[in-house]
Structure formats: structure tokens, C-alpha cells
């Protein structure tokens, strides 16, 4: 059982989801998965060394993760309110449309 490969697989799934999903909430879930993969790797490193200090530093990783989640969620709410949808393709289309209207 190799936890490096496990966390790499998790990271791969997260990055694939980030690149392929068009729903903003799914993008948020992908970011959560990437953060979980990084944290998993860090915890397994410290537990393999038998040191508790790494777990204490883990609080920093979790708080950073929570802050990132809060910012992403705030952006998501703003974008959804502004454009009325949470689909990235539709948002990009609307943005391009409004830009071309502003130019004309």
C-alpha cells in the first residue's frame, strides 16, 4: 500500500474534474479533492516519521483550505447572481456577448 500513489491518483482525479467539468460547484468539489490529496500526502509523511509536529502544522493546511473554499464560494455566489447560471460555458458566452455589444 503506497500512499504517495493514492494521493497522486486523488490529485489526478481532481485535476481531471477541474479541466472537464463546466458546473462551478463541481469545479469547487475538484478543488476540495486536490486539497484533500495534498493533505493526505502530508499526513502520511508525518505519520510515517512518527512525529506529531506535522499534525500540528496540518492545522495551517486546513485553515488555508477553508479560506480558499470560502473565497471560491463567495465568487461562485457573485457569478451565479450576476449571470443567473452556474454553468461556465454559458457564463463565457454571456461575457463575450456583452463585450461585443460594448464594442459595437
Amino acid at each position: 500500500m503506497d500512499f504517495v500513489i493514492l494521493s497522486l491518483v486523488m490529485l489526478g482525479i481532481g485535476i481531471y474534474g477541474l479541466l472537464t467539468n463546466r458546473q462551478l460547484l463541481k469545479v469547487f468539489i475538484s478543488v476540495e479533492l486536490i486539497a484533500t490529496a495534498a493533505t493526505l500526502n502530508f499526513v502520511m509523511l508525518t505519520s510515517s516519521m512518527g512525529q506529531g509536529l506535522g499534525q500540528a502544522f496540518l492545522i495551517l493546511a486546513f485553515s488555508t483550505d477553508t479560506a480558499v473554499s470560502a473565497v471560491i464560494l463567495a465568487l461562485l455566489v457573485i457569478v451565479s447572481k450576476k449571470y443567473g447560471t452556474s454553468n461556465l460555458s454559458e457564463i463565457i458566452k454571456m461575457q463575450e456577448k456583452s463585450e461585443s455589444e460594448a464594442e459595437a
Partner: protein
Amino acid sequence: MILEIVSIGLIISACLALFLDEMVYSVAALSGTFIFTAILYILNGSVFAAIFQFVVGIGTLAILFLSGEMLGDKPTKKASPKKTLALIGIGIVLSLPAIFLSFSGSSGTTTDASFGDALWNLRGMDVVLQALVVLTVAMGIAIVLYEKRKGGQ
């Protein structure tokens, strides 16, 4: 054996969280991911980390359930059990390398190594990969800023 089962569950729930159409089911699968991660931490003796994972996970899930209901678009077609089964199968296949392969050389009981030694000898590959990711992101940001400046002129 328990570790392997939990790892398979972790990967399956991650796949389901990303690729299920209904938002509520995705969030439920994400809760499974958090729970399996916490169980992995407990099995490796990191109880403190597991408790934090639970606490942070519960907060994230509560917010995601609410925002998923409020902001998520309703799927036009019903989720098919075939797709769910296919996702579970993909999850099992993806978790096999973690169970059978190993490139760190040990499943990790090096209690006498210093932090620097352990970081480079056991996790050298991760460090290099993370450096590559950071480099790629930095180059991407630089390219986007350059294109923006070019477009502005």
C-alpha cells in the same frame, strides 16, 4: 486489508463526487471522501488530523449542501444506474495502483529519519511534481498577464 478497502472507497467516492449529475448526490459522495480520509488518518495513528478533517469536512459539506440546492442547475435527465456502476468500476481500477505498486520503497515506518531526509528520500517525487505544478501555474499566470497587456495596447 482494512487500509486497502478504505483506499478503494476513497477513490470510488471521489469519482462519484465529481461525475454524478445530481448535485446532492455529488455532495453526499464528497462526504464519503472526507469520512474515508479521516478513517485513513485514524488507521495511521494521526487521530488529531482525523478530528480536524471531520470538523472541516462537516463545515464544507453543510455549505455545499445549501449552495448545491440553491445554485445548482437541475439535471434534465435522471441518473442511470449504469453510469454509477461504471464510475464505481473506474474507481476500483484507479485504486489498484496504490494497492499493488510502490515507488517510495516502504509503506512507511522510518521513525529515526530527520525531516529533511524523510522529505527527500521518501517523498522526493512529490516535491519535484509539486515544483512542476507551481512552475506551470506561474508560467500560465505570466502568459495570461502578457496576453492581457498585449490586448490592451
